[in-house]
């Protein structure tokens, strides 16, 4: 039960947390863009459906969504969507991706709608198609504008991964509770803080660097 043993055990748990973090970003960042297109759609029924969906996801606790994704298919329809050894992790990933994609979609929407109308008109005069306009003129400006709010969500996500323990995913807090807290050993709980602080510190530096790289054209 030395310091090294605890470090190694907690690293195993933190590996799961990090994997959940990275995969959630990989899937939810693009999915968020798709959802933002849906909510901005000129086809009203689609935009209503998407906005209602975003309202439900943002309006209910992520913890509840984890329960729904993992337990409800089996309880109501007797379907094992998430069986096998990695089932719990996959279920957590699905819940996280949907939840974060909805938050990202609103950030994207804010960024896209904030671009002046004049730019679209100018692009049209130059004979560009709508798709061309979006990808060559609008998108990179949006990325610049939304970097700060996105980095906020990303940092929140690092810590939200600990919620996965409610469906018994072996992330760092679950490992700690099973191996140490349950035996009355408290100090690893505070040691966990170091893991998160270091990780978020690295992310903060990374986003600072990104902002610097993107600060061209600033007068």
């Amino acid at each position, binding site marked *: 039960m030395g310091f090294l043993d605890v470090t190694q055990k907690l690293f195993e748990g933190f590996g799961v947390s990090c994997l959940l973090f990275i995969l959630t970003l990989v899937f939810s960042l693009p999915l968020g863009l798709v959802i933002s297109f849906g909510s901005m759609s000129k*086809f009203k029924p689609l935009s209503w459906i998407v906005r209602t969906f975003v309202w439900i996801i943002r309006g209910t606790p992520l913890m509840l969504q984890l329960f729904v994704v993992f*337990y*409800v298919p089996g309880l109501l329809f*007797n379907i094992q969507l*998430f069986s096998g050894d990695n089932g719990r992790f996959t279920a957590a990933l699905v819940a996280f991706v949907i939840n974060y994609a909805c938050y990202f979609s609103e950030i994207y929407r804010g960024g896209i709608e904030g671009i002046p109308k004049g730019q679209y008109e100018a692009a049209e005069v130059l004979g560009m198609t709508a798709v061309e306009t979006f990808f060559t003129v609008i998108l990179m400006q949006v990325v610049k504008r939304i970097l700060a709010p996105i980095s906020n969500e990303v940092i929140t996500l690092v810590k939200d991964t600990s919620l996965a323990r409610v469906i018994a995913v*072996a992330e760092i807090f679950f490992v700690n509770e099973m191996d140490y807290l*349950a035996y009355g050993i408290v100090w690893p709980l505070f040691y966990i803080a170091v893991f998160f602080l270091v990780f978020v510190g690295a992310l903060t530096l990374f986003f600072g660097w990104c902002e610097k790289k993107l600060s061209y054209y600033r007068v």
Partner: protein
Amino acid sequence: MKRFTRITALVLAVLMAAFVFAACGKKSDWATVEEKGYFVCGITVYAPMNYFDDDGNLTGFDTEFATAVAEKLGLEAKFQVISWPNKYMELNSGAIDLIWNGFTYGNESDGKSRTEYVDFTYAYLENRQVVITKADRVAELNTAEAFAGKKAVAEGGSSGEGVAVELSGAEENVTTFTSQSAALMELVAGNADFAVIDYQMAKAMVGTGDYAVLAINEAVQPESEVYAIGARKGSDLTAKINEAIKALSEDGTLAELAEKYDLTNDLIPNIGAEA
């Protein structure tokens, strides 16, 4: 708009069909388990039932027992650590197949019989709930009445919770946790006056290591109970497990296991034999 209506109708139709097929395709529990080649036991980690040895391998009486039963049935036993209060949701959603972790045949804390939620197999081990206090308070808390109005801790959804409510006199006096060991930790930390947990766990853990300041308080002797395995209601897995338990009881495997974990006095003999 017309196209939208059509697409919506199509999507709904596909969804409905999927649910109907899912309902038709419902196989019996045994068939499902046999096909996947293993059953999953929902556990919490505690000695002597399911715990990790010094090399980090899961071991314990229930661990070896479940493995032996699985072997008899030509299957493999897998173990999933769960949050104990979620056990029925885990079971009914199919995330686990059996509750096999010193599961007491008895009542929930609200007095409802557990048979309303699960089908039990044969009972295999004697157990009782015991009251744990700090060792230096055993002399002070020496009658059942002394516990009235005292603050208690127990595992949420455990039979100990029911005993704790009865002794302390009110539900508000009892705080519950996701595992028995978490409840003991509260007691060590001094946040409660007494805890009610399984005798088998208390025997293995109380008075040693981090729990050295605790002691089993014999002033109160709640009624004895038995451990059994919980399966889904109406599952045909129950009969299969019972067959295997009976065979393991007859050939002495269970007696050997009980001796290994110092449970010989508590093991129920001749399980499943005609009276």
